[in-house]
């Protein structure tokens, strides 16, 4: 009787899982392996013209200047974007904790861009950042700053794209930090105050270490996001995607161009394998950092 009950439960379980499991196997896991397989082939729409090239595409990765550029840019995006959004997010979250009123209102305002379609956001910003008739330059002029080329300059385009992405991610960051701050027990601060700690020392010894898990999560999720940057880059400079002079090209955009504009699906798949390896690495670092205990 017990055995049949256990069997019954297992049968129900497999019935419930049948469709989701088939979905994951067929649309997620199989394609991941197909990407690996594709990376070993010179792909062609006509099956008779596809041929096996082994690791040739991987060798090409090593001497592809555009790939190097995309990787370098991705690193720059991450190094500029993550610290900015974390610092701004933390400052705003702390201010929201102190504000005498309007907390929910401000939180909503800061969060709104995060749910807004990135395409629309990119077009509005590219209009506002236009060097000749953009609102931003007009505002800078009020402060006596000469007009800047922004997206048109190879030096300024990448930081400008990063700014738009930071602007869009900021609300997410603020909400995370607010929740993190709220989960720190009040008693810790009270105890520290009795011991004579104030202001900066409270932050340094209580807030910062206890916020560590949220911080690690933000850095990792943020980094994975910057590794996959696509929509904003494409739409901010629509006539010169990834430009000027490839100064805003990202890995995801390069993959898209290779696969769907130049139809080099095999080599594009190879770049996706590289992207996967990078994401795996970042995720493993996260697991490592999050399992480390925080000591007070």
């Amino acid at each position, binding site marked *: 009787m017990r055995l049949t009950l256990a069997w019954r439960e297992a049968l129900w379980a497999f019935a419930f899982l049948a469709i989701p499991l088939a979905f994951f196997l067929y649309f997620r896991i199989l394609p991941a392996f197909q990407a690996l397989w594709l990376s070993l082939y010179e792909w062609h729409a006509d099956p008779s013209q596809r041929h096996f090239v082994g690791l040739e595409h991987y060798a090409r990765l090593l001497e592809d200047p555009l790939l190097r550029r995309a990787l370098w840019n991705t690193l720059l995006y991450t190094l500029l974007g993550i610290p900015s959004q974390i610092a701004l997010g933390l400052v705003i979250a702390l201010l929201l904790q102190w504000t005498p009123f309007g907390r929910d209102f401000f939180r909503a305002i800061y969060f709104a861009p995060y749910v807004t379609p990135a*395409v629309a956001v990119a077009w509005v910003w590219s209009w506002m950042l236009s060097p000749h008739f953009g609102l931003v330059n007009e505002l800078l002029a009020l402060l006596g700053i000469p007009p800047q080329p922004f997206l048109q300059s190879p030096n300024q385009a990448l930081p400008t794209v990063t700014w738009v992405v930071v602007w869009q991610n900021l609300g997410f960051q603020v909400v995370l930090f607010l929740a993190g701050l709220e989960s720190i027990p009040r008693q810790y601060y009270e105890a520290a105050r009795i011991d004579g700690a104030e202001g900066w020392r409270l932050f340094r010894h209580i807030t910062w270490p206890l916020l560590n898990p949220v911080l690690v999560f933000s850095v990792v999720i943020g980094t994975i996001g910057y590794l996959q940057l696509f929509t904003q880059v494409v739409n901010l400079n629509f006539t010169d995607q990834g430009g000027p002079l490839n100064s805003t090209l990202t890995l995801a955009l390069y993959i898209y161009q290779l696969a769907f504009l130049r139809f080099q699906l095999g080599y594009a798949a190879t770049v996706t394998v590289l992207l996967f390896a990078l994401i795996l690495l970042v995720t493993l670092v996260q697991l490592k950092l999050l399992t480390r205990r925080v000591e007070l």
Partner: protein
Amino acid sequence: MKAKNRLTGFLVLLFLLLGSGVMVLPFLWMVLTSFKPFPELFELRFLPREPTWANYQTVLWETGFLRWFGNSLLVASLTTLSVLFFDSLAGYTLARLRFPGKNLIFILILSTLMVPTEMLVIPWYVMSAEKGWINTYWGLLFPGLITAFGVFLMRQFFETLPQDLFDAGRMDGLSEFGVFWRIGLPLVRPALAALGIFTFLGNWNAFLWPLIVVQTPEMRTIPVGIALFSGEAGTAWNLIMAASSLAVLPVLLVFFFFQRQIIEGVVLTGVKG
């Protein structure tokens, strides 16, 4: 002491207000520009001198906008319904039923979270080309029908419920599906709300896969529509801003109505997840 507090409060408020200005300015500029006739575009005045609905009329009646809107609505609604049903069913099974291979299946599903969309998009495209899914609704829909993130989220929720409730349901003669449907689901309603809103917004805003799978203007979703229409429209910024305003409006409405669930959803994934 009190004066100092009041001063800090004032400075904090001032800084937050300045910051909100930066957050709101692009939305404001977009909406204001969308009411300007073309000649006024380059004047850099904030308010339109002769506000007009003409841009909206052009976008609504002379581009495919209404069709794109319908496409987005269809894709986002159907994927959301599917995700809510299958993700919660899988989450329930993985949390509450005992069966061989349970952990293995859970790890298998979770591991797909690490695979970037860019990697899947190429095989999906090859698969869609072979099966004739390019430029069809099914082609737009299939990648989003079930999500690993949702299964994970729902499993976490179902695990926190007391076993007695489910046992009571079984005693009353409910089938295993009845237990899930009648007892489980009503108890995880907050999680369903958060997951549903996120899925809807995510699919409404999705860009990469729709851009690839869509070929004709009629099949575009809103983000693809705006991107390509703007490319085609070139310098018609007043039209682009009207189309963007129309695309942003439903999202902001959803956001202001369901703000609490959205914020809870973020907190759930980041701080407690």
